[in-house]
């Protein structure tokens, strides 16, 4: 196994386990629906084409109509792209901030570590959804603000996890070896520490992405997220729950897609975490590890 692209090796190894390929297939299907759905929608998702809560079949389309008679099937197809896009952007933002904070705290240590982590703890005290809601309710519902709010709410949790992983790396001899040349801290952090915690960062990306989806869908449900009339799965659950008895599909399908995506992604992330820990490493690799390689003297 070559080290340069450790994340690629771990990805490949994860995909060879049932957890990995089933998780990715399931999540991938939902992502594909979200990406290509808007082009496939048979009707304009914001126009009334059926009767209110029309039951499926006949003139009411595959999944019936919603609260104001729009085609549910079209809205399901069209309602994923923005949701997932915003979630991806927020995740990326949150993980980048979290990684920077975590690595810096771990590497600098002493009172600087204390300062960073206590500030992080203050943010951790707010439940994520409450924090994001607070920001959006004060400054208004803009998409960029939504991304910022959700992203920032992730950062403290990512920082904690990354700091723990980086602490271990910072104590390794190869970091000390470079410190001996009086190398600037930033170069040690980026060149020595960060490349060795990429597997942790990968797991965080996957995990935080599912949380992002849930938070954004939750905020949409509460009316603070992505705004109507544009369709999105979280909003649809809210809009259509009053007609649950008449046309349950208008709620079940968007809720189900979010659930399936979350479960799929979590399963896949779990496979990556196991692969990077070596739990699911191929036996021929596991068998030839010698005590020396494990660092026992």
């Amino acid at each position: 196994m070559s080290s340069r692209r450790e994340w690629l090796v771990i990805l490949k190894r994860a995909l060879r386990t049932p957890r990995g390929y089933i998780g990715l297939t399931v999540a991938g299907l939902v992502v594909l629906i979200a990406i290509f759905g808007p082009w496939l929608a048979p009707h304009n998702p914001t126009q009334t084409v059926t009767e209110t809560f029309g039951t499926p079949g006949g003139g009411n389309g595959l999944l019936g109509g919603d609260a104001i008679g729009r085609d549910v099937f079209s809205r399901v197809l069209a309602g994923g792209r923005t949701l997932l896009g915003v979630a991806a952007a927020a995740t990326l933002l949150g993980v980048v901030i979290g990684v920077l904070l975590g690595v810096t705290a771990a590497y600098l240590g002493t009172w600087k570590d204390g300062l960073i982590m206590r500030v992080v703890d203050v943010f951790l005290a707010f439940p994520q959804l409450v924090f994001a809601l607070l920001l959006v309710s004060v400054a208004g519902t803009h998409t960029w603000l939504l991304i910022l709010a959700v992203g920032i709410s992730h950062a403290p949790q990512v920082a904690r996890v990354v700091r723990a992983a980086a602490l271990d790396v910072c104590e390794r001899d190869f970091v000390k070896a470079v410190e001996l040349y009086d190398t600037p801290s930033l170069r040690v952090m980026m060149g020595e520490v960060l490349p060795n915690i990429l597997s942790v960062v990968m797991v965080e990306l996957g995990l935080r992405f599912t949380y992002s989806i849930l938070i954004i869908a939750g905020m949409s449900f509460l009316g603070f997220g992505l705004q109507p009339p544009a369709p999105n799965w979280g909003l649809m659950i809210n809009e259509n729950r009053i007609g649950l008895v008449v046309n349950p599909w208008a709620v079940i399908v968007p809720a189900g897609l979010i659930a399936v995506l979350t479960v799929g992604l979590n399963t896949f992330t779990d496979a990556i975490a196991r692969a990077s820990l070596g739990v699911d490493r191929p036996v021929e690799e596991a068998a030839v590890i010698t005590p020396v390689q494990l660092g026992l003297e």
Partner: protein
Amino acid sequence: MTDVHEHIAGGDAPLLSVESLRVVVTGTGSDVVDEVSFALRAGEVMGLVGESGSGKTTVALALMGHTRRGLTIDGGKVLLEGRDILMPNTDLRELRGASVAYVAQDPVSALNPALKVGTQLREIFAAHPDVRPPEGGVEGRIAEVLADVRLDSVGAVLESYPHQLSGGQQQRVMLGMAFACRPKLIVLDEPTTGLDVTTQRHILETIRSLCERYRVGAVYVSHDLAVVADIAGTIGIMYAGRLIEYGQVSTAFRAPAHPYTRGLLRAIPDPARAHVLEGMEGQPPRPGSRPDGCFFAPRCPFCEPSCSEGFPLAVAIGSEHWARCRRAEEITLLPPLGELPERDHSGKRAGTAPLLEVKGLDAQYGEKPVLHDVSLNVRPYRCLAVVGESGAGKTTFARCLVGLHSHWTGEMTFAGEPLSSDRRKRGREQIRRMQYVFQNPYTSLNPRKTVGQLVEQPLRELLDISGSERRDRVVTALEEAALNASYAARYPDQLSGGERQRVAIARALVVEPELLICDEVTSALDVSVQAAIVELLHRLQVTRGLTLVLITHNLALVRSIADDVVILRDGRVVEQGQTVLDNPQSEYAVQLLADVPTLSLAAHP
């Protein structure tokens, strides 16, 4: 549980008989261990020796019907008093601990830190009601067992938690647990590796006397030939999953029959004589990529064309001595250390003023003092060895020198200039002139960088030279460390332990330092690799006029390479000078030298 006693063998039958043992990687079927056969009598200690990855631990675990994760016992027999424990009807829970006991390498991880020692000892009898001493006898047996392993103040030991005992005491507790049920066979997996030489000698004596007294057969797994020579009666040498030589220790070491055994003996430094060491080139083939014919042939100086035709069968040399080599008989006739010359220090340059002076160095970790009033001089172009047991403060000393540890007071001057305790105040030039090589090459190289990037790094940080000049110097440094330029594109995990340590040495050499501080640089390596690294260091001293400070616990190694010796104990200098090993003055040095296990059998053929 069927009746074990039905099969108890007669007087001369072996206690343990292993026949064609085969252990494979689950699923792939490539063998980790194969064709391993040997026998052991009651009361006998057999040493099972090999370098890392040779399969010695795999064999040891198979003696209890166990394998590590991912391996399967695929064939062969392990007959304990005539009964095959590998048969599916064996009750392994009943067997392990009661009939076959195991002592692990590291007592710290083998003992449960949350339970008192007494509780853990009593658990054994709870787990094995069949062999429990009669009513009320358990406490008596425990006291007896602890006395056997020479642990005094039984009450106090039983009431302690493992962390309250020293490493040696913990390993004695492990031995006590192993002998508690009066097993027939005991498997010891490098039980003294983490211990000081003095403690090691006491533990070895205890094991030997207990095996004799209770007629217990022991299989002692180790990579250290000198330790095995000390404790074992017979020895089996493993290479790439095969048992390649078996015999009485005295005959096998005096007249080794396999080229690999001979090579090992020539690679090991002798505490009594400073001879040149001879490393073995190459490395053992891994499971699944082993050559046709003899596995050792690619590294073997005695290789001939027929060696590629199937793995050689065992050739008997004398009674109970055989080797799996076609040329075994002629190799036994060669004295193993015959033509190895004495170490020649005359090629080194001469200098007068000390390169490094240390005066009154006191160092502490937090509140805890580690070094007390250490004063010494490092002569230019010489090799100074700083020797001590674990906890003597030798690594702290090295770290103070290079600036990894800054909590010290005292005076250090390097080439006439004072050395600051704060690394950042030393300046690039001073940093460049003193380089440090870490103990463990598996942790000192960033796994995400190529060898070229690793070796180039100090040049980038410490010198202002052009990219092409940097690349030239990287290649030169790699070649000086006996690696060719093609290594620059590789990653550390594609290298063996010895190659990694060469990269670490090249990284230190690339900035052309005057002083090289080596902290236990060979302790994570196999002996054949260690020999090559030691020879490399000596050659660099002669060719480059390098001054060396060698931190080590290995006195034999010191004998082989050092000019000057400093012995540290509990952070104080006990003795120093050029003749410490030949003519020790302090009681401690005398004791230390006496406790070092030796291969004296081989040294004086």
